[in-house]
């Protein structure tokens, strides 16, 4: 899709089998991610938004190929094509062992800063670990580089020998950012990096991340459930619902002219600071999100969709171009567009 992609995700599926009974028979499948396609360009920030439980973290973890660790029988389909300097690698088919040599290229910043740092290691040990693995720097060089990185994320040299429990959530997240940047990766997956922090600190950390993104020339997949934050920082936005992408396009297009009924509903829930705009239409979705174990046929959103029609339950809608670079997965939107363009002709 994008001209110089760092990663091209095509039809990604992540299914977790569920076992039950005495002899551990397979009794079902959690379709956490069920056909997701998007791409991230060089130095681009793509925001991935959706309600909690829709599969955002699973997309992120699949993209660094660590799902097998906690769920050994996970089924991964589709492609996750990384375009590294001289080779194209598909993480969806690589075993965790084969992935090892590419690990330095893709890093992750985790949601919970309290769980993402080993409580037994000092900050310098934590940030140094990737350097030990992926560079042949000497010990003093590594130390200097660690201090350097800590400075870049707004920590001081005196912090290097401290343990995570001596830091606030915001400071811990800075350590996590320094660790992710240590190997100078092509892509960093930021899994709701500020949602566990105090509101007063969130903006600081986000601004820091934006500065570092430019300084390190890195692409971000920025996962969040807050559309206004994502609109502010990202080049493109992907809207996800129950394992499927509903809409993907340039940030201001998706934010100001959402096409998919789910994106519209999500946006109408964003609080607006401007009191004059109060008359904006507010869409309240009815019913609950279905479970990813027993998804509705066809469009997964159809059970709550305000504009649902009979065709919605037939096929899973594909993402289709609405404008160039703006993709929507909705048969109704597609139909109305076709009608409109026919009228113009």
């Amino acid at each position, binding site marked *: 899709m994008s001209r110089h992609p760092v990663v091209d995700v095509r039809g990604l599926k992540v299914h977790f089998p569920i076992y039950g009974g005495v002899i551990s028979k397979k009794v079902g499948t959690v379709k956490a991610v069920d056909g997701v396609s998007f791409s991230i360009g060089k130095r681009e920030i793509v925001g991935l938004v959706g309600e909690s439980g829709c599969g955002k973290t699973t997309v992120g973890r699949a993209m660094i190929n*660590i799902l097998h660790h906690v769920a050994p029988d996970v089924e991964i389909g589709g492609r996750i094509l990384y375009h590294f300097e001289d080779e194209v690698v598909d993480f969806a088919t690589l075993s965790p062992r084969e992935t090892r040599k590419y690990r330095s290229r893709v*890093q992750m910043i985790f949601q919970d800063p309290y769980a*993402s740092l*080993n409580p037994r290691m000092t900050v310098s040990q934590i940030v140094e670990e990737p350097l030990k693995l992926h560079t042949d720097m000497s010990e003093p060089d590594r130390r200097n580089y660690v201090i350097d990185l800590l400075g870049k994320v707004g920590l001081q040299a005196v912090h290097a020998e401290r343990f995570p429990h001596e830091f606030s959530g915001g400071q811990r997240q800075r350590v996590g950012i320094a660790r992710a940047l240590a190997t100078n990766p092509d892509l960093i997956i930021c899994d709701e990096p500020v949602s566990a922090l105090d509101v007063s600190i969130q903006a600081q950390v986000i601004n820091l991340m934006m500065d570092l993104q430019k300084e390190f020339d890195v692409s971000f997949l920025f996962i969040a459930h807050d559309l206004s934050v994502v609109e502010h920082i990202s080049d493109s936005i992907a809207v996800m619902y129950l394992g499927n992408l509903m809409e993907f396009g340039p940030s201001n297009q998706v934010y100001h002219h959402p096409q998919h009924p789910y994106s519209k509903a999500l946006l109408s829930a964003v609080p607006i600071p401007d009191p004059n705009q109060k008359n904006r239409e507010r869409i309240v979705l009815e019913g609950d999100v279905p479970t990813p174990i027993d998804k509705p046929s066809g469009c997964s959103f159809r059970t709550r969709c305000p504009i649902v029609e009979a065709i919605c339950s037939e096929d899973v809608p594909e993402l289709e171009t609405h404008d160039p670079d703006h993709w929507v997965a909705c048969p109704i939107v597609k139909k109305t567009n076709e009608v409109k363009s026919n009228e113009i002709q």
Partner: protein
Amino acid sequence: MTNTKQRNKHVSISINRRRWLKFKGLKRGYYSFITIVAVYGISFLLPVLINSKALVVQYKGEYYFPAILDLIPGASSYYPGTKFGQNVPGEANYRNLKKEWESGTDNWLVMPFYPYNPYEDITTEGNKMYEAPSRNHWLGTDNTGRDVFARLFYAFNISISFALILTLINYLLGITIGGAMGYFGGKFDLLTQRVIEIWSSLPMLFVIIIMSSILRPSFFLLIFIYTMVNWIFLTYYMRAEFYREKAKDYVSAAISMGQRSHIIIFRHILPNSLVPVITYFPFSVVGGIAMLVGLDYLGFGLPPPTPSWGQMLAVGLENITKWWMVFSPISAQFLTLMGIVFIGEGIREAFDPKVYSRLR
């Protein structure tokens, strides 16, 4: 100015160091720890403290150190009585020598602080079986005329060593197998769990009794038998700990940077999974001691004449009127176990993240 000073003064302490400081602050546990460790340490010097052999013998210008040789494993401290001009069959009797040499000779010897050993039958010296405590025999003598005080202390060393070795082997097995189950999960976990379930449903007390009545029990055979039963228990803890820890994000971070499995297991997960097994350690030692006492009491434990509290207790209870035979092993066991339980309590509290969790 003061600000920078304060910042420089900031001392970073690891979690373990903080726990140790907290443990030190809990006086009851800390002093019990010091006492038990000190007494156990000293108990390795028992051959020079409580022994019927002389520390130093000077005989016809030459020096001999029989008691000190007892400290060195494998060294022979045997000197026949005739060597020192004593007319006795077999080994020299140093207590008698001391009396003989008290006047009119250049020869001399120094006896240990408490000159009786736990194995010797002293009825040959005019003593009786079941002698009440006296100045010479602080806790009296037992059914075969052995000194109870000496036996009590040697039994302390054996009990604690037994329990420590047992616990360490159990820990090694339990941590390795339980940790592997938790870390690798899947089929390996499932299979091992079934094996453990079958294994743990065997009536182990009977297995132990049957085995020790067929085979001649020895220190290491008993440890082996107990280990077979006890390692299982720890796997439950370790499996759960590893399952929980490996799902945490710091492990994901280590994997996502390409860290190797063995480093993830030993450097990342293991140090964070040891809290329950460390807090359980003292209680496991208590269990080991109590088990040994129990089997010795029933006669399936260490072979006689090994000094043991259980055997002393059995003799004492057969002759309940000889109060010192009952009182001594019970008090020794009580004090030891109480000390270790205090240590365990202190450790548990030092590892408790809550500040005020102590019942006052």
